């Protein structure tokens, strides 16, 4: 259940040729290019004598009859068409075909028919049709236009990607889903069909394990809180404030960034410091970076004394590593400084305190007072003379949305008044409408209220003894719901009533599970990935892999809500309407 190791196995398999050594060309398509760049660097490929990498769809490639070619594509219509054309008039001496998922029989026939020159020397399927972000985090499936139902292409994509994931992990799982989510149910039944009766079912004939792995399909709408909260751990913060896309961070918009730092890669596999620091909270991160810089300084100091031959020898040996280190130090310094700047510029300390209070405490009047103060840009009563810049609209909307979710059923709910306040602040009606969109998506009536765990708000978690570390950090009180759900799953205590077993699925054995694959329909967050990573660490013999169709931060989550179902709030209703 190590996604990176599995991905490396596949990459190795596809670049290792059965036919001796020589210079090779690698042809990719739009799907496989990002997936291979996530797990293999150019020098890795160079070691396998791949000296030219190009897109299959690029028709201006020159004919090179003495080179051999490795094709690695997803078997979808556009790529198959391009491959057919390539095989009809081959540019290279021979072709090894690798598909990232199952090829349809008819496509294979067509390919065979177009290969009348017999240039193809290998045809194989490697099941890599998903993106691997970390050892335990993947992205599978595409976004949907609606939030409560699948369209055919999106459902197909999710099914294909997840069945590739299961095949690559050699899992024939018990599939369970959340009772209230139609999408999760649909996906569960499609996947069950693919595993047990579809074309690929013969491949799922893996040796029985003592307890079947569990594929748990969750729905984002059951936990709208986690993506809305400002996270405080390194990886999540980078994603929240700057944005991570396929392990790459675009720093070009950061003020005063060096030229070579505009695009940086944050890959825990290649960056040891990042692996250690990605789950640290901001305070610990500061210490960690300081230690890292000290280490770097120590290195530069020792290299300054080049008195003897020995020193010189060491220097020559270590110079490339030294430079790598210096690059890495400045990368993480840049990131940390930018995070710090964002925290101050966006007044995250204040915002996060209120957010956590909203999420974890039951204190309507105090929360409302603080929320109003922030929305109206009033100064902090404790430090009235301190001049603060107004809070960003985004943050205000997010806070009101949190409030709306938290106190939806509260008698004194004042969402309407807060919306009106926002409107008077000059916020556009369509932006204010996002709050309603969030409510419509994940309001109390939409969420799964199970008997065991009472609420997504972690106050309830405290009852269950899960919030043991709550008081540890004021800003990290909230524990994502997924922890409670997966903990129950590991203990074999997940209620069948709330988490039914999918059709066509392996029979449920009421037992503690050891391998869990979590898939969140509607997107996962880095915060959840971190929590699950920790859960795996504390539960021996348990392996957890998690993913979603996207990795959300608060901005993408809100945008998505807005785009899926837009509301426009125009009429300024009587602010005191609901006060009674």
């Amino acid at each position: 259940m190590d996604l990176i190791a599995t991905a490396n196995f596949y990459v190795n398999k596809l670049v290792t040729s059965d036919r001796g050594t020589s210079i090779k060309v690698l042809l990719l398509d739009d799907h496989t290019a990002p997936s291979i760049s996530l797990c293999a660097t150019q020098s890795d490929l160079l070691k396998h004598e791949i000296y030219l990498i190009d897109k299959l769809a690029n028709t201006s490639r020159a004919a090179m009859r003495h080179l051999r070619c490795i094709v690695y594509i997803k078997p979808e219509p556009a790529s198959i068409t391009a491959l057919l054309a390539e095989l009809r008039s081959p540019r290279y001496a021979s072709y090894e075909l690798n598909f990232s998922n199952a090829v349809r029989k008819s496509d294979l026939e067509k390919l065979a028919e177009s290969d009348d020159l017999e240039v193809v020397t290998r045809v194989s399927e490697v099941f890599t049709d998903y993106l691997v972000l970390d050892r335990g985090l993947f992205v599978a499936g595409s976004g949907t236009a609606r939030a409560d139902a699948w369209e055919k292409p999106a459902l197909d994509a999710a099914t294909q990607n997840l069945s590739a994931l299961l095949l690559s992990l050699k899992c024939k799982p018990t599939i369970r889903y959340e009772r209230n989510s139609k999408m999760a149910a649909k996906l569960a039944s499609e996947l069950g069909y693919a595993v047990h009766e579809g074309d690929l079912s013969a491949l799922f004939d893996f040796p029985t394990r003592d307890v079947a792995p569990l594929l748990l399909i969750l729905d984002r709408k059951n936990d709208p809180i986690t993506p809305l909260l400002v996270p405080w751990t390194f990886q999540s913060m980078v994603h929240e404030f700057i944005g991570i896309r396929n392990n790459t961070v675009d720093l070009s918009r950061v003020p005063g960034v060096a030229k070579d730092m505009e695009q940086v890669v944050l890959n825990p596999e290649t960056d040891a410091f990042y692996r250690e620091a990605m789950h640290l909270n901001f305070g610990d991160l500061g210490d960690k970076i300081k230690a890292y810089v000290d280490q770097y300084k120590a290195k530069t100091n020792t290299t300054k004394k080049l008195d003897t031959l020995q020193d010189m020898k060491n220097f020559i040996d270590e110079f490339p590593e030294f430079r790598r280190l210096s690059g890495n130090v400045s990368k993480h310094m840049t990131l940390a400084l930018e995070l710090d700047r964002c925290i101050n510029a966006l007044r995250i300390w204040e915002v996060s305190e209120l957010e956590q209070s909203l999420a974890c405490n039951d204190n309507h009047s105090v929360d409302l007072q603080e929320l109003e103060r922030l929305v109206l840009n009033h100064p902090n009563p404790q430090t009235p003379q301190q001049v603060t810049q107004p809070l960003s609209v985004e943050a205000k909307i997010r806070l009101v949305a949190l409030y709306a979710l938290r106190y939806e059923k509260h008698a004194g709910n004042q969402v309407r008044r807060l919306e009106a306040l926002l409107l008077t602040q000059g916020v556009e009606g369509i932006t204010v409408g996002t709050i309603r969109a969030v409510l419509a998506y994940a309001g109390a009536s939409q969420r799964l209220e199970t008997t065991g765990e009472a609420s997504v708000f972690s106050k309830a978690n405290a009852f269950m003894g899960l919030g043991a570390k709550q008081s540890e950090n004021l800003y990290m009180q909230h524990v994502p719901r997924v922890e409670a759900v997966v903990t129950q799953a590991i203990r074999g205590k997940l209620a069948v009533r709330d988490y039914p077993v999918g059709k066509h699925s392996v029979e449920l054995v009421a037992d503690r599970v050891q391998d869990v694959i979590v898939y969140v329909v509607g997107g996962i967050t880095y915060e959840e990935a971190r929590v699950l990573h920790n859960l795996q660490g504390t539960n021996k013999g348990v392996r957890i892999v998690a993913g979603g169709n996207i990795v959300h931060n608060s901005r993408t989550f809100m945008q998505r809500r807005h785009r899926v179902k837009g509301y426009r709030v125009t009429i300024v209703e009587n602010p005191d309407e609901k006060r009674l």
Partner: protein
Amino acid sequence: MKRRVLGPRTDVPDIVVPPTPKPQHEPELECPICGLKVLSMHQLNRHLDDEHANASEEVPGTLTGENVEDLTGWLRKKVVSQTSKLPIGLPSKLVKLDSLTSPEYPSLLATSPSPQPDTRGPKVTRKHWRNPSGNDFCHFPRCRKLLNVRNGSVNCRRCGELFCNEHTAFRMKLDSLAEYSPVDGTWCRCCESCFNSKPGYLDTDGATRDLFTQFQTSRQRIVDQQGLKTNQLENRLVKLVARFNEIDLKDEGRVFKFFASSSLGQKRAAEREVVAWASDASATHCHLCFKMFGVYVRKHHCRLCGKLVCGDEMTACSKEVPLGKLCERLGGVQARDPQYVIRVCLGCKDGLLKRRNFIREVEKSELPEYLQIYHDLTTYEKVIIILLKKFQASLVLVQGEPLDSTIIAANKSRGKLVESLQAYEKLAKSLKVAVPEGSDDTKIRHSILQHATWFFQENGGKFKRYWLEMAEVKPDLPAPKLTKKQIREAREELMVYREQMFLIGEMIDTAKKQRRFDEIPPLLDNLRDLEAMCGDIEAKLGEDGF
């Protein structure tokens, strides 16, 4: 939780027990934790040990002594309440005795019902268990904790070794011989290494499927068809050429060439003989580009298949091809009149020549320069790696016994190594040729260069390290009187150092450009050292220098 000590019990009441009547009702006990039905207290006891012994570890945080007390108290209460539910008719004494029933001393209660076979799986053997000696340490390599009441002392059910509680927090299903049996085994406590040794558990190789055979079968059908078609076309062409040759031969025999027109007519007739032409009325559209025939789009017959095609230059549906060219490609036939043209459609041209052309191009096309260089580079790489090993071995010898012979040998292999490294570098540099940017050729050249640089850095660095090591051991290694060879070597060495100086100079420049000033001082120091080295060598060379 205090663990039950295994082995014969000493506190068994020494009483003669009358044969007990079989209880009227099966005493049914229920496990207070998982609700499993068991038959006797003994079984319940064992079940609790096996299945729920590590229950405390499931709760986050450790249980304090008080909690343990609570738990056992609770268990006792449960058990008592269960016992009270037993059939009233059964004497309580017997119930107690029944709890002692165990296979280890069956003679005690010979007539009492022996424990029913565990419905949840076979009973796992305990023969291989290591007996606690009282002074054991956890078998887990990195733990080695003293095993006692607090740390626990648990046998891994599979390997039998003793572990502390923490390192047996794993479960796997075992059969009666304590081997992994995923389907109908019993859940047992085990250690981490046994847990990880489950077949396939740590596998990282995902599923794959090889479709080549299937692909090949489908392809073979097409290839065979294609082969037949090609054969047919070849035959027609050979026939046609033979007919033409006949006509031409006759023609050449004639004294007067006026009748050339008649031979042309004969050739036209021969064309129609070889393949039946489709009638003009049979097609309204070109069968290749589907253009409609008309005044501008004329109908033509392909001489090899007889079908109607257009003669559009743009689509190249059909073209007039000189016989000579066709024969040359085909091989084996010679046309007497190579200039004579016949019309051939695109389909027939491909059918006839596509495969031949492709094979010819793959086999006969010249290797581009960079490929040649690449092959040479890989050869050098192999040589360098071998030489490096040799050099290292000779250095070990020198360090062992610095005799003249070993030193000479070391110097010799060093010389060879320097030579090949230089040749390698030179070769790699020849890749840097001004070719239009962005073309595939350039990309490949660039990649090869990158690879070569990487290789050179790594192995050159290794070489330097070995060399410096040797220099430390025996600073007077280069013999005082300089032979010609040594002069050459010293010069080479000088060149290597100068090269190094140059590289460092470049590094300094780039560091300056990128404003990484912290990198500069060490580089400068390094440069100074290199200068000193160069100075030394130059001094040593004296007049023999450049």
